[in-house]
């Protein structure tokens, strides 16, 4: 096995193109578990932690360009105001040690249906920037990034450069069900983003389908029913109906962490609560 350690983005892309057998490693919180347990023996590790571009975030035209290698701890510390949904989700990841190393790019790279970064990125309408030395950069909406259980549209010669996340225009929420308050893979998860600027509701479901996914019909339904102008209270029946429609958008399975029925039920509850909390926040802000 080789250890490739590029110190620039161009060198990283060149290494990725030359060595299809190399496994990129960022925080290592997924990769090292696989190596430690002999589940994977790549021909090389491609260490991305020395590529400065991946560890930066910038803001332009209301969009945060979050480098793939920015760890959760920095999302929480530096972006809680601009990307509240993602920061809330980041706070639920693992433990302080995991949040110090684990990155949003690595979460996308693993493409687990339970990845906590995915639902808020879906709700915010984020895009993933993928780059190869041969073909340059392309941008994929997060909703089109996931291709199946732990699979994505990332090509073997591509690296994830960044995620482009619109700055929050309204309140956002993230809810996650697990057996304790730390160190849990979500049994189910739900993210919501209110977009009062265009009167839309963004949604993201985690751990309740083969891939993270949105609940577009439920979002459109709620956006159509909300009184955006007068911001009157959200009736409980409406919130509950939204919850049911979110649950209908999932296709969960039974597994060791929970049953399909419980996943649907908890999604309905989380969606109802998230909508109520976010709408109340918006009303208070007015």
């Amino acid at each position: 096995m080789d250890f490739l350690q590029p110190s620039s983005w161009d060198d990283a892309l060149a290494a990725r193109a030359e060595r299809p057998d190399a496994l990129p490693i960022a925080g290592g919180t997924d990769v090292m578990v696989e190596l430690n347990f002999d589940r994977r023996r790549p021909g090389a590790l491609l260490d991305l932690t020395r590529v400065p571009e991946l560890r930066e975030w910038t803001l332009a035209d209301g969009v945060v360009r979050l480098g793939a290698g920015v760890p959760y701890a920095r999302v929480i510390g530096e972006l809680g105001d601009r990307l509240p949904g993602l920061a809330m989700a980041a706070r639920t990841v693992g433990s302080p040690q995991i949040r110090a190393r684990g990155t949003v790019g690595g979460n996308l790279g693993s493409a687990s249906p339970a990845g906590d970064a995915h639902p808020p990125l879906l709700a915010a309408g984020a895009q993933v920037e993928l780059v190869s030395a041969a073909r340059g950069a392309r941008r994929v909406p997060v909703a089109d990034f996931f291709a199946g259980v732990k699979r994505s549209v990332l090509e073997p010669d591509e690296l994830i450069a960044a995620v482009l996340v619109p700055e929050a225009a309204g309140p956002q929420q993230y809810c996650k069900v697990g057996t304790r308050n730390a160190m849990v893979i979500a049994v189910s998860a739900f993210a919501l983003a209110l977009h009062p600027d265009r009167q839309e509701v963004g949604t993201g479901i985690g751990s309740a389908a083969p891939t993270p996914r949105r609940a577009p019909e439920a979002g459109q339904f709620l956006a159509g029913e909300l009184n955006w102008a007068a911001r009157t209270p959200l009736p409980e029946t409406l919130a509950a109906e939204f919850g049911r429609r979110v649950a209908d958008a999932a296709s969960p399975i039974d597994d060791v962490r929970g049953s399909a029925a419980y996943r649907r039920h908890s999604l309905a509850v989380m969606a109802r609560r998230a909508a109520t909390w976010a709408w109340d926040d918006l009303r208070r802000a007015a």
Partner: protein
Amino acid sequence: MRVTTTVNGTERTADDVWPGESLLFLLRERLGLPGAKNACEQGECGSCTVYLDGEPVCACLVAAGQATGREVTTVEGLAEGGRLHPVQEAFVEAGAVQCGFCTPGLVVMASDLLERVPEPSDPEIREALAGNLCRCTGYEKILDAVRLAAARQAAR
């Protein structure tokens, strides 16, 4: 491959490092520093916690090569001039050590907390130690130890 890294203030070099091996293996098996413990090798227990460039991380989840040119501080590097670190002293006095396997990780985590938050609330202590498992103590004495170290630090 060869890995050179600064450990507890001293530059250390190891040869014949397998590229897929962890920083934890490097520290324990090649550099003779058995303080950080190996219990789960999957980030769940925190017993391997060390500082990497000033930040507590699970050494089992860092590839050894990723530590090249970085600064690592292990539990062995906390005591100064033969005197225990205040957090270590507090662990001993509060009875927070039983089998001791989790202790190095907890001591590193607690010392980081007290550097950042000199007078932590109970929820802050619990949050900081959420990634460290202990099978013996039931955690109460560990919380006592952190409170004791914080109180002493405040009094100084």
